[in-house]
């Protein structure tokens, strides 16, 4: 088996709900190689953001991690106490959360926000040393040095997102989790920010998990893609294989729902709605929307099967 940097094993996240337990992440396993770009795609409510938070053990009540394990190298994260887990966030696994450009503190200069992140992890830099570190970090993400003394409102959306990436990489993490990092940006800026994120990740030698629902972005950025549906990872495969020969009907329909720039017409959505997690249909959760569903799909939940070394699928028909 090839080397892995991050391994997620049978992870389960549950939310306690008055009408029973809702499983937002249901028995998900995958692993990341060093330097790999892994995508997690799915519709809203599929569990992909919950998955990202669960890796960092940041699930809040009424949610809880019900079972499973996350390994960063040889470290099992469930065995870490609160302080060590806190130290590992940012230093080991850094997150660029959804809408993070709006999570910058509006009354603190960018330089001090980076300084705070460093200080919080025991890197207390002051004066010139801090200034140099900040300048280097900003340069890495393509920002001019004068951004250091600016406040977030003085920056454009793209620049704020770059500043968030600078904070995420300040301790040279091994894994970066980026949750829809460009969803609020227009396409021209999105492309520039994603290219910078890709270069920064290569410079660091980090692996990256990109969470999102834009299959075009996934096609252009990731090496391997996982598709989530109703809390399960229903397919994983190298990006090229997913595009040319998706195994799961849901993956195929997700790709087809993307508007083409080559040919007009043929734009169609996936019929029906994603199921409510507390009212999951029996059998395969996708069967009510699946054009190929059989009797077996309606009664028996498909197991995750390995398809070669790099790929898995959870579908009776694949």
């Amino acid at each position, binding site marked *: 088996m090839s080397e892995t940097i991050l391994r997620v094993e049978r992870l389960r996240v549950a939310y306690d709900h008055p009408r029973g337990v809702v499983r937002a992440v249901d028995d998900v396993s995958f692993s990341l190689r060093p330097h790999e770009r892994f995508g997690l795609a799915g519709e809203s409510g599929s569990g992909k953001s919950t998955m990202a938070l669960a890796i960092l053990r940041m699930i809040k009540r009424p949610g809880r991690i019900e079972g499973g394990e996350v390994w960063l190298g040889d470290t099992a994260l469930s065995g870490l106490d609160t302080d060590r887990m806190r130290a590992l966030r940012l230093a080991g696994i850094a997150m660029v959360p959804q809408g993070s450009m709006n999570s910058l503190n509006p009354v603190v200069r960018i330089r001090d926000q980076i300084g705070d992140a460093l200080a919080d992890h025991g890197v207390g830099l002051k004066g010139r040393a801090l200034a140099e570190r900040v300048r280097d970090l900003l340069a890495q993400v393509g920002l001019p040095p004068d951004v250091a003394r600016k406040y977030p409102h003085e920056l454009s959306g793209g620049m704020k997102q770059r500043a968030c990436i600078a904070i995420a990489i300040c301790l040279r993490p091994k894994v970066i989790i980026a949750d829809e990092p460009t969803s609020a940006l227009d396409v021209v800026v999105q492309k520039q920010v994603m*290219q910078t994120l890709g270069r920064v990740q290569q410079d660091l030698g980090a692996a990256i998990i990109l969470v999102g629902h834009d299959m075009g972005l996934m096609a252009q*950025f990731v090496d391997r893609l996982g598709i989530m549906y109703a809390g399960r990872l229903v397919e994983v495969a190298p990006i090229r294989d997913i595009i040319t020969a998706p195994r799961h009907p849901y993956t195929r329909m*997700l790709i087809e729902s993307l508007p083409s720039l080559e040919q007009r017409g043929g734009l169609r959505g996936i019929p029906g709605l994603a199921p409510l997690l507390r009212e999951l249909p029996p059998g395969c959760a996708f069967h009510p929307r699946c054009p190929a569903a059989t009797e077996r799909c309606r009664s028996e939940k498909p197991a995750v099967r390995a398809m070669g070394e790099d790929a898995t699928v959870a579908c009776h028909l694949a």
Partner: protein
Amino acid sequence: MSALIDLHDVGKTFAGGKVALEKVSLTLTADQPRFIAVVGESGSGKTTLARLLLGMIAPTTGTVRYQGDDLQRLSAARRRDFRHDVQAVFQDPYEVYNPFYRVDHVLTMPVRKFRLARSRAEGRALIETALRSVGLRPEEILGRYPHQLSGGQRQRIMVARALLLKPKLIVADEPVSMVDASLRATILTSLRRLHEEMGISILYITHDLATAYQVADSIIVLYRAAVAEAGHVERVVKAPLHPYTQLLIGSIPRVSTERDWVGEERPAGRAPSETGCRFADRCPSATEHCLLQTPPLFRVADDHASACFLQRNAPAMTDAQLSSLLA
């Protein structure tokens, strides 16, 4: 008969001197329904155009007319007609709803106000038909509160509401911004069907050129408050002339095994020029000339024009009467 909507040299400058939209002329007639997409990034003026057309803000220059009458000076009776004929679907499906009312309220109100039905049962039937036409099941929608529905359901209810009135024009400002790609396709195809089956004109305002290409017949590309390029979708998307449109199309991530996102582009560092072409600071083809003079729209074909000096050999359009370009 006078046009349904006529924008003549309409521009908007906000207090403080920010130009939100340069002079635009556009005519929409009831007998020739159109499906037009207005595409641009945030700050391009696309929402300002929608708000001007809906009479929500007054133009600084020019006039917006509804069937010949100045939109800013409509009588109460004419305003009622306008509100019937022209419907808006907005970006944020949360803000339209009063959280204390069931969603039925936004549907029964227009039925009562415009006396669309003679009885309660007839009204109910109208509402159910409208909901079905946007792919919703009435029994899953009616009787619920806004928070019990998804963003996509709420956006579709607003489309259904617009339909109830059988308007002549729907102005849809980012109507699918809150939903996933798959639902986006469902909602947009339902708008397209309405246009085709009921002859409703649609002005689809979006930042997403790919969906615009899929559903609209014509495209107007706005950049920093002015029209950069306009024409038939096939021409604008397949053979874009303006360097901004080219940049926009080149930035859309494609589902393809070929990676065309190679290298790293840096954002432009130069300040936008005060005079001249608004895109000059980011344009790879900019010359001295572009910094000095503002390019007019050059008409390269009956249904295609670009505001760029690269097309200076084509005749310049003296007034930006966009309707003559649009299908």
